[in-house]
């Protein structure tokens, strides 16, 4: 193989020029990234040093909808009644027909506007109701998250602090995670066209604040805490100590970390 001297020199010059351009590209990229990242981010926050968890007490939820409203306002969730990061469901269990020998009658579940404006009195008369209660719902922070497994581009991930997050820069808006989540906790944002979900108010908890829904809950039906650093009067520790805890849909093997106290077996 004969390679002329002129060609060799050309190849060498091209290669050296290309290599010298590498650091310049790097510098330009980091400058752009620096420009895009706004100030005030808690750089001292180390996600490996926390393990967040939320607990929900069904017996304490009064269905006022303050949490739903706060979540929408804090996280700029689209107003329409189909987009929620957290919502409340009302379970209404009717009395069984007399002489039927049944455990219970019909189970009715509703969530008008996610419970944001409270719940109107249902059409079922009071004397026909066996029992009724409210169940607040949000991302269940699964240990084995189906949404993370379903994401084809790796945009959804389990952060080391126990929160399941979506990287909006990576999300392509395919909606697989929305199909995968057995708890219906995700939606495709009509604004960003990416998947959105409860982040446990990541912008708040990283600054030592409670998530907005926990902050405003008037009955402490929602408790929040850090399992790695329990404080002296930690409401989450008291919640875990004083209640028999359950999770939603345990048979799916998703191993949700969000724990419920006072769950009825009808709750899905």
């Amino acid at each position, binding site marked *: 193989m004969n390679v002329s001297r002129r060609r060799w020199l050309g190849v060498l010059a091209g290669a050296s020029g290309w290599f010298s351009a590498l650091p310049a590209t790097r510098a330009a990229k980091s400058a752009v990234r620096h420009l895009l990242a706004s100030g005030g981010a808690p750089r001292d926050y180390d996600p490996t040093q926390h393990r967040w968890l939320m607990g929900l007490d069904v017996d304490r939820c009064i269905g006022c909808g303050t949490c739903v409203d706060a979540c929408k306002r804090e996280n700029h969730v689209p107003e329409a009644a189909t987009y929620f990061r957290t919502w409340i469901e009302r379970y*209404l269990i009717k009395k069984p027909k007399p002489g039927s020998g049944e455990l219970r009658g019909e189970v009715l579940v509703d969530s008008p506007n996610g419970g944001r404006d409270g719940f109107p009195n249902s059409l079922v008369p009071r004397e026909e109701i066996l029992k009724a209660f*409210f169940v607040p719902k949000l991302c269940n922070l699964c240990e084995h998250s189906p949404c993370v497994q379903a994401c084809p581009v790796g945009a959804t991930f389990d952060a080391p602090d126990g929160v399941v997050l979506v990287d909006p*820069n990576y999300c392509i808006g395919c909606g697989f995670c929305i199909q995968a989540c057995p708890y219906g906790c995700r939606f495709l944002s009509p604004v960003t066209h990416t998947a959105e979900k409860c982040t446990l108010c990541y912008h708040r908890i990283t600054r030592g604040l409670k998530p907005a829904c926990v902050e405003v809950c008037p009955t402490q039906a929602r408790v929040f805490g850090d399992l790695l650093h329990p404080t002296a009067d930690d409401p989450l520790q008291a919640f875990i100590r004083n209640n028999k805890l359950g999770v939603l849909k345990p048979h799916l093997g998703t191993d949700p970390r969000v724990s419920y106290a006072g769950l009825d077996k009808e709750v899905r």
Partner: protein
Amino acid sequence: MRSFLPPQILRLVLLAVGIVATYSVGRLLLTPKSFGEYGHYRGAALHELADRPRNFAGAKACDECHSDLRDKLAKAPHRGISCESCHGPANAHAANPDLALPKLTDAACLRCHLANPARPAWLKQIQPSKHYSGDDGCVGCHLPHQPNDSP
């Protein structure tokens, strides 16, 4: 110059080296710097999500100016309820106290205290049509911060 490899093999080797080099250089350039910081995702995403603005100030911010109201509330049945539960998001108000929070109406009381069969029995609930109501609404008889006392 005679090559030690047959030309067709040499071409294949060069092609393979080229593909691998292009891949590695592309990966080097395109992979975000923070990728793999905590796992198989962009570590900077955590900080970007943590960087979003907030609307609710949190109880500590309220305490800075209104600790007297907090102490009053602590002795009343409404203890443990955060200011922003009823008064709404107050981050703007905390940053600039001249921005007043919206006035509350009876709807704020009824949001929790309207009778509903699904509400737990321990919660005090009223049916507005059967409950005494004067011209001043709820606050005519109940102090919102000490609901068992009258003004």
